């Protein structure tokens, strides 16, 4: 075997490594990843870093401004806000990834089917998707939750997943359309392959890049959506230290107790920004 071919092999293998190296070399991606990692650790083992018990009421130190003892201050029940912020990521970091995963899987399926079959299937599904996408996300979510009467964690996951799937399906469909133009799809048809095999075994592996990109981008939106829904009272309830629940509880006292709202808000912002930094990096690495 010649030298030309072995280098071609080596180059293909390094393509994947190259992408990883590109990610690792970008300071924004690394910073984003570290922040996400930090919040994930906090969600898994909140006691590890929190200086106080997040739900312990201390009647003697209510409404304390930030001090050395309580760097983020305390709330109306005298609970340490730093500890509550550190413990508050669990809810968001459960619901958002689960919802995003659900939305991505559903969306990918829809994208494969509409992109592969086109024609009537695509037209009908396309208009339905248009209709869903035209609905304001939060309002729809409230409507559904009200209609079914419960707002447990998994209800929120399913709602967000369903609402996200049309957006994902649009992106995947576009990629599938481009793939079906390629001759390998025609070759598969000419050897009598059935549609499911062509969609899942032939086309799906080739559209994984947009799927991965779409997942990370959607994750950022999902975090924000989860926080918004929790803020208006769906999902978890006090005394859970959830960020959005905290904001909901104290935003009416922003003046003078600004610290009670500011720090949880910053926490949400930091997670959303961090996820988007990673998402941007991944998109660049995949779309090069």
């Amino acid at each position, binding site marked *: 075997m010649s*030298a030309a071919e072995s280098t071609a*092999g080596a180059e*293909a293998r390094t393509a994947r490594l190259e992408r990883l190296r590109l990610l690792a070399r970008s300071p924004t991606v690394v910073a984003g990843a570290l922040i996400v990692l930090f919040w994930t650790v906090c969600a898994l083992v909140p006691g590890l870093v929190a200086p106080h018990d997040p739900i312990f009421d201390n009647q003697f130190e209510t409404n304390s401004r930030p001090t050395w003892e309580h760097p983020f201050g305390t709330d109306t029940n005298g609970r340490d806000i730093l500890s509550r912020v550190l413990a508050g990521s669990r809810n968001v970091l459960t619901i958002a990834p689960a919802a995003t995963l659900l939305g991505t899987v559903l969306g990918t399926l829809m994208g494969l089917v509409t992109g592969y079959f086109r024609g009537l299937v695509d037209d009908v599904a396309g208009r339905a998707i248009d209709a869903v996408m035209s609905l304001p996300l939060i309002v729809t979510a409230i409507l559904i939750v009200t209609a079914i009467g419960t707002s447990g964690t998994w209800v929120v996951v399913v709602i967000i997943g369903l609402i996200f799937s049309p957006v994902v399906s649009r992106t995947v469909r576009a990629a599938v359309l481009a793939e079906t133009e390629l*001759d390998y799809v025609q070759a598969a048809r000419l*050897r*009598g392959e059935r549609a499911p095999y062509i969609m899942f075994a032939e086309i799906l592996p080739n559209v994984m890049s947009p799927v991965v990109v779409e997942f990370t981008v959607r994750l950022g939106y999902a975090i924000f959506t989860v926080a918004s829904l929790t803020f208006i009272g769906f999902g978890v309830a006090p005394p859970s230290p959830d960020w959005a629940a905290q904001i909901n509880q104290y935003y009416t006292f922003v003046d003078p107790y600004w610290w009670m709202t500011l720090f949880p808000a910053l926490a949400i912002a930091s997670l959303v920004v961090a996820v988007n930094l990673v998402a941007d990096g991944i998109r660049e690495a995949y779309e090069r």
Partner: protein
Amino acid sequence: MTAPVLDVANLEVAYRVRGVDRPVLRGVSMTVDRGESYGLVGESGCGKSTAALAVVRYLPRNGKVQGGSVAVAGRDVLALRGRELRGYQARTVSMVYQNPGTALNPALRVGSQVVEALTVLGAARGEARERAHEALARVQIADPAMVMHRYPHQLSGGMQQRVVIAMALAKDPALLILDEPTTGLDATVEAEVLDLVVHLQRELHTAVVFISHNLGVIARMCDRVGVLYAGRLVEEGPVEAVLHEPRHPYTVGLLRCIPRGGVRKDHGRLDTIPGFLPSLGARLDGCVFSDRCALADDRCRSEEPPLETVGPGHDARCFHHRRALELPRAEAEDLGRATVDRSGTPLVRFDGLGKVFRQHGHDVPALVEVAGAIWPGETLGLVGESGSGKTTLARALLGIVHPTAGRVELEGRVLAPRFQKRTRDELRALQIVFQNPDSALNRRHSVRRILLRALARLGEVSGDDAERRAAELAERVRLSERTLTQKPVQLSGGLKQRVAIARAFAGEPKLVVCDEPTSALDVSVQAAILNLLVELQAERGVSYLFISHDLGVVRYISDRIAVLYLGRLLELGLADRVFDGPHHPYTEALLSAVPTIDGGGRDRIRLAGDVPSASSPPSGCVFHTRCPRTLGRVCEESEPPLREVATGHLMRCHIPLEELRASQAQPAATPPAS
């Protein structure tokens, strides 16, 4: 003697890939005089385009000139910076690229783009419009005002390339570089563009560097030629000398790969060049070609041969240049051939096939009453310009395109028009090898997986049997065992095409449609793939429907040829008959458009204008608008029938065969103005 316009000396260029400088040009020297046309040939990856980019100072960011000098019109090009460099690029050199579609801005009218090119040079707005008009007239555009008002996508490929050439010449450059300017164009259009370049060069005395992989084009266009291999100029000299008395084994090998001078598969195998081009930036001791050269000895492998003068103005970089023509063949000459028996039932017969596409509310007929047959073990070649219906016909047989009229029979039984309705046996019988293996192979699947799946579906074998069959199949198309575990991206173009061929043969097909299977490949690889196809045919008695725009290739591989024009069959007959004539005036024009290495011989006929629109085809004989031998009214008013002019030779022309025979022996009249 005046100084040359282009003077490149010991140019060394490297590309920086993952932190390592990989040399691409290794000390290239050449000169081009005013009014001279210099051809640069070689296979892909040998550095042709890099040389051009270095000269116009347009190397990609990771490309670096590491040594040597480039002077254009006496100026040291490599020392130019900033404003001077822009001035040089704007006024002194011009470059025309392969794809005119991407060289023009799709959002702007042609006129404003030409005007912009002129205002950059300092022309006032009003004056620029006038000069744009002149520039377009100079490239023989019949109606410049109308063309200026159009957008690029409204022009044909040949017309676009004329516009690009007009812009390149507007500044009256000292040096014009053409990088594969006609590669994507039909032979008839290519001929027109080449004629134009020759004409303009005579008029303007520009120095021209012409880059092409097509030796026929080089033979037609150039005074001198340089042969590049792995970034080294291995041979240089007058075109005649280099192409007819090559003195470097690489040039000899390259010339032997090309099917020409009427060679046919039954005369023997095409020769190939063994091995592969060294990988980018590989360290090479001794002669760059020694790895693949049958004449190489120890000296060649350790010591780099100097460029030696072997004739007047003719240099070769080889110790054995005297013996170059004695280079042993890489391929044995003999080739077993199955003879074609046309007495029984044809394998495939198609009758009255028609296909009408609907586009923007218009009916566009792509095939009109095409009939023919393919017998077991024979190759039917399909030729015609783009839009002639070659691919539609092939796809109608496969059932990918659903014909609107007519029927297809396989061994006497009528086939369902759509492949979805065909039985597994029928699917297995008709397979295809596509033009572009990158698109035809799933880039996420290993070669093993590709072959196993084809075997499971078409060969109906699985498990250990399938593994064994896959290995056999791979071996049959000369893929090494290691290839099986690799993915397409890890393979070269030729190897990928072998995988695609192996896949098509997984189920013992009876007819394989080959849709330009070698046009994306270099000539040495093309020769190997053609040999493989011919071997498989001799071994298994498979038939081919072979589509190619390269008439040399079609003639080599085909037993019979069908000539299509605007979806109509104009001629069908044995390959030698169709090529040697007397033939249809359209066939005559197609053949005469092809630039050949051997040149001369045939009188050149040029087709005027573009192929008419298929949605409103000309009345009478569809070819009458461009026919150099039209009889006038009869051709304009009545469509000639497809007559059998000799046994098995069909032709659709009003001119009697004897008249064609007589007139084709003499030069043709000039074509009528369109």
